[in-house]
């Protein structure tokens, strides 16, 4: 996946802090801080030095900064070697570079996730105990 530099419409620079629910229809480049939630119908690029404490939703994403919150990506997610994600991840396709830190559940499946709540981990069936067995 490639997100061209010229495609950025909103740029959250390194000198800026965004508080609240950031919603956009276009592509977003984050170099600064975001607290709250970040949702875009376009592509997201989180650069080195960016600090996001928010749930994140986007069509495609490249993450090289820090995210504390759940990440839901509709298509492709690329996690770079400098990235640190603390939260659950849900996406269709993922690539993780060596050195990236992920602390949370990771759900990768090509299934449609339009109706599924953000980064909800799959339910795991417990094996039946000895007493329950016939």
């Amino acid at each position, binding site marked *: 996946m490639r997100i*061209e*530099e*010229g495609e*950025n*419409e*909103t*740029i*959250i*620079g*390194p*000198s*800026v*802090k*965004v*508080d*609240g*629910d*950031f*919603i956009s229809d*276009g592509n977003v480049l984050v*170099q*600064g*801080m975001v607290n*709250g939630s970040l949702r875009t119908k376009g592509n997201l690029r989180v650069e080195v030095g960016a600090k996001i404490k928010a749930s994140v939703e986007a069509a495609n994403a490249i993450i090289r900064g820090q995210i504390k919150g759940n990440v839901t990506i509709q298509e492709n997610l690329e996690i770079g070697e400098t990235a640190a994600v603390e939260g659950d991840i849900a996406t269709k396709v993922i690539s993780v570079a060596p050195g990236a830190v992920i602390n949370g559940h990771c759900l990768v499946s090509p299934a449609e996730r339009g109706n599924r709540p953000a980064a909800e981990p799959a339910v795991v069936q417990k094996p039946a105990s000895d007493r329950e067995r016939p």
Partner: protein
Amino acid sequence: MFAYFLDDWTAHKRYSREVDSLDLLLTQHGIIGRRIRLGRLHDLDASVRDCAVSGVKTFVAIGNDATASKLLNSLLKMDGYQSDKGPTAALAVLPIGDEQKIAACLGSNTVPEAVQTLVEHRTESIDVGKLNNRHYFMTMATFPPKVSLGFLSYTVSLMDDEHQVHICNTNVFNLKSDVRYQKSFNPQDGMFEAVITRRLPAADWKQLFAKEKFSSNFQIESVFPHQRITVLSREKTISVMADAEKQLSTPVEVEVEPQKLLVVVGAKNNF
């Protein structure tokens, strides 16, 4: 039919050569019209109304950004300026003196270029910004440091005082060649961009006193495209440079009015 609005200071002998050459060019091209000199006590709104009633379709500001800003505000506040088919009269600028962001945006960088633009008379409808539901601006509004931005569902605060907020309607930073901003700064897209810049230190004394190269003094760090922005400040009133200097009470509501103004543009326009 044309009406020319000359700012009072253009009568100064410093500008006499430019004004004389302008008169000559206008006469040569046969586009002479009504001349109105804008004194300090002049009622510009009444003059604009009077010209519109007498059938003037092109209002020409002779002077700098402040002159064009005064005329633009009077024109847009005039009753009947907007008809069902759009704006009823066009604005043009003939540049005299410094501070010519509006003229540069319209492709009228020099007096001969501006006269040629008037002769060709190609018009375009463009968006304008509105501050506190009262003051209009065409190019951009520059706010003092220590302000923050309020959008519909989020706020943007600056982490230090070195940065400045500009709300841009047109491409004043000359960034069309930069691939990162090709979709931004279009005065016909019904949006404007809140831009946060960092002022670069002057490399040498020549750059410190340079009047030109406004855009090279700033480095763009953040861009937020939007239609409505609230600028918040701890001060009760702030000085905003929106084409011309304006004192505004805070919070300052900035909204875009799409395709509101008709302008005469030249081939070298910056749209």
